[in-house]
């Protein structure tokens, strides 16, 4: 089996994978980073969104081998261990932007990418359109939209801390 090396949440990692091993399998099964979830098999739900070299990507549609040398950030890498939550994580909690929590890691990672692309002052329409790649079955999105708007603003105040990427 070929070996692959990448940096995940600031840490250098190496593993043997099959050519067909997906990034999400490498993260979940090899590295036991189970915060990244799999909710579908057709790239629709977005529960698997991580950042590859700072850009949101669906780890269920990315081969682990494609990520050779890449810098990956997962939900586990957003806040320092025992440190405060990332402002976007805090905004989801404060605004009840989650219920069962399964889509949440992908939502938060996608939200950060919306901020990267569209800035800190996000209106409702923009957030709803930009969330096209993520599905939530619990919240009806109302509070997710509120959380992302609030999180984006809080990041501006916080010096736009974008985790370890």
């Amino acid at each position, binding site marked *: 089996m070929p070996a692959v090396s990448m940096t995940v949440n600031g840490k250098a990692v190496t593993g043997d994978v099959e050519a*067909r091993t997906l990034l999400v399998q490498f993260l979940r099964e090899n590295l036991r980073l189970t915060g990244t979830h799999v909710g579908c098999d057709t790239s*629709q739900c977005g529960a698997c969104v991580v950042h590859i070299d700072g850009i949101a990507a669906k780890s269920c549609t990315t081969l682990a081998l494609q990520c050779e040398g890449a810098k990956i950030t997962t939900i586990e890498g957003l806040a320092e261990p025992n440190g405060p939550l990332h402002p976007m994580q805090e905004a989801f909690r404060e605004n009840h932007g989650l*219920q*069962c929590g399964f889509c949440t890691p992908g939502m938060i990672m996608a939200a950060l990418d919306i901020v990267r692309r569209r800035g800190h002052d996000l209106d409702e329409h923009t*957030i709803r359109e930009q969330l096209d790649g993520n599905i939530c*079955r619990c919240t009806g999105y109302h509070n997710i939209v509120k959380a992302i708007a609030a999180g984006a603003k809080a990041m501006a105040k916080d010096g736009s801390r974008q985790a370890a990427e």
Partner: protein
Amino acid sequence: MSATGIGAAVRRKEDLRFVTGKGQYTDDVIRPGETRAVFVRSPHAHAKIKSIDISAAKTMPGVIAVLTGKELAGDKIGNLICGWMIHSKDGTPMKMAPHPALAAETVCHVGDPVVVVIAETQAQGRDAAEKVKIDYQVLPAIVDPAKAKSGPQIHDVAPKNTIYEWSLGDAKAVDAAFATAKHVTQLDIVNNRLVPNAIEPRVALAEYDAGTDQLTLWNTTQNPHVSRLVIAAFVGMAPEHKLRVIAPDVGGGFGSKIFIYPEEVVCLWAARKVGRPVKWTADRSESFVTDAHGRDHVTHAELALDVNGKMLAMRVRTIANLGAYMSTFSSSVPTYLYATLLSGQYDIPHIYCEVDAVYTNTVPVDAYRGAGRPEATFVVERLVEVAARQMGIDPADLRKRNFIKSFPHQTPVIMAYDAGDYNASLKKALDLADVKGFNKRKRESTRNGKLRGIGYSTYIEACGIAPSQAVGSLGCGVGLWESAEVRVNPTGSVEVLTGTHAHGQGHETTFAQLVSERLGIPFENVSIVHGDTDKVQFGMGTYGSRSGAVGMSAIVKALDKIEAKAKKVAAHMLEAAEGDIVFKDGKFTVAGTDKSAAWGDVSLNAYIAHKFAGQELEPGLKETSFYDPTNFTFPAGCHICEVEVDRDTGKAEIVNWTAVDDFGTVINPMIVEGQVHGGIAQGIGQALLENVVYDKDGQLVSGSLMDYSMPHAHDLPSFQVGLTETKSPSNPLGIKGCGEAGAIAAPAAVINAITDAIGTEELTMPATAQAVWTALKVAQPRQAA
């Protein structure tokens, strides 16, 4: 109200682990030596299995075992069952067909499991599964419930594919009332089939310990104890005390994770056979052909009214599609969870409903958010709206004329409503939605070339499921009480063990709010434990908006006992009579004195037992309660939907949504609003987007998230949510429940709004742009004429 007590919008305890990726869902559990199960499923809707050749699959790399239905039967693993007995009009019991966990002779729907491959990895399992050769003799299939009775017979036990022909109400009285009616409104309704699609797919992980002969199942279930009971007592997998079921964090359920499915049975069986843990994780495409679907009714409904718009009687005839096998509670959904709600919020003297449940070659159908009540509400609220239009009466006014105004109210369809104020929720909704300004907004839309419509849904539901005697008399195989155990530790912190289960509802927060308020201790000092049959003795799980009304009531009862025992301890400590001890704000005082003992001191003294003799008072502070409610609860409210329809494309956009709900006592308004939002989204999904499509051969055309239209953020508006409150007299907290309201209310509100906009009632869900455009094309020439 304290900052963390009842009524406070406390932020959720569970969120820290979910926003940091530290949730522990079933697929996150990894056991040493774990293997993976991959199922080979039927590609045909209906076929005889002529032969199965597993020889090539067995030699594939990483394969540990390849198992078939023949071996399952050989090991005397029993069939899956439906736990609610329904009798037909003629007194005969429902026709429950055998449902083996692996099909051995016949497959009855696309996705029916036939063979399981156990392999070292999922990829190896998939490779081997492709080498399994099954020779099928394809049989004709039937998918349309309306034609099921004349279709090819699926099960020997059920002639004409009929499971039961059931009725409720007095047919003669209804006929007589119709004979006197001034106006009769008739509707043909299809309640579209839906896929629940919780974002976490189902997972089962089974482990066998040969040393203790103990089986453990980690499972995405809403009710671990019911799962254990059925798998032990009916499937016969293991004695109940040798089977532990653990439901860790569960990523949404909406009903679909209530049921006992073939895959968990097979994983348990296989784990014992191969002597290693066996895990199955569903692909989403697999979920589409294995998770129980929802709704799927074909209905003809009639409402009789007098000259003043007073409702006289209702007559409803429904064909309910239960799919290829009877799922765990499927029989109850189109009967006692449906016809019993046909009175809506209205004083209707006579109601008669007939329901024929049929088998088809489709995925089994069972409870999905609302379960029967959305279907009932859609019938009632469409009939009322259309009657108002036909009679030239304002739809809100027609509703008001018929509202039930005094309680308790006995409907002609079993239910006895205990409390409510339907005028209050309607009035508040009319104000919040600015219905007075609607005509102005409509003129504006017209100027912009758009059609604007408004639709109401004044719904009712029966929740807090349910009084055990009542459901027992209706055929339910279990009691629907709930249990709680309150354990006070020597340092005064508290664990509550509950038989309910949370999969997004936030029980770790709301249940702790109750304990914090009642005992006057910090919210942080309370932990809620659920989802493990080794920890919680028994419980009925979470569905039917029951966890607050029934589950929290059990906690209240246990807390009553805790307080009584703690007072005895305090009396010994304070050297006072037990009757003189007053407990308030976490402190025990002797009435009329300044002598007191803090909660923590009393807890400690209960355990060190230095101040009292064990003969007169048992040490310790732990109490259990089993609470059985006295009635269902009856949440009700009014949802108002306003739409704008593009004439050229047919696209209907929801521009305003107002929801005013009466849930009785609200523990945490933030969580309640979130539940309402989510329910509305699923209801709008049904009305505008979602639909299961089978082709005539029984192939599932809408079998992935690329083909089945789930609501996205840009499909939905923000929601305006308000509350009114009449407390439920049927439980100690006055809670009614909020989990299903949105899904129940929303579809009728949407369709009433769109049909108002386009001027025709001939519109079937989902009201896609194409469906609305087509309805407009049919309606416009007629309107012009």
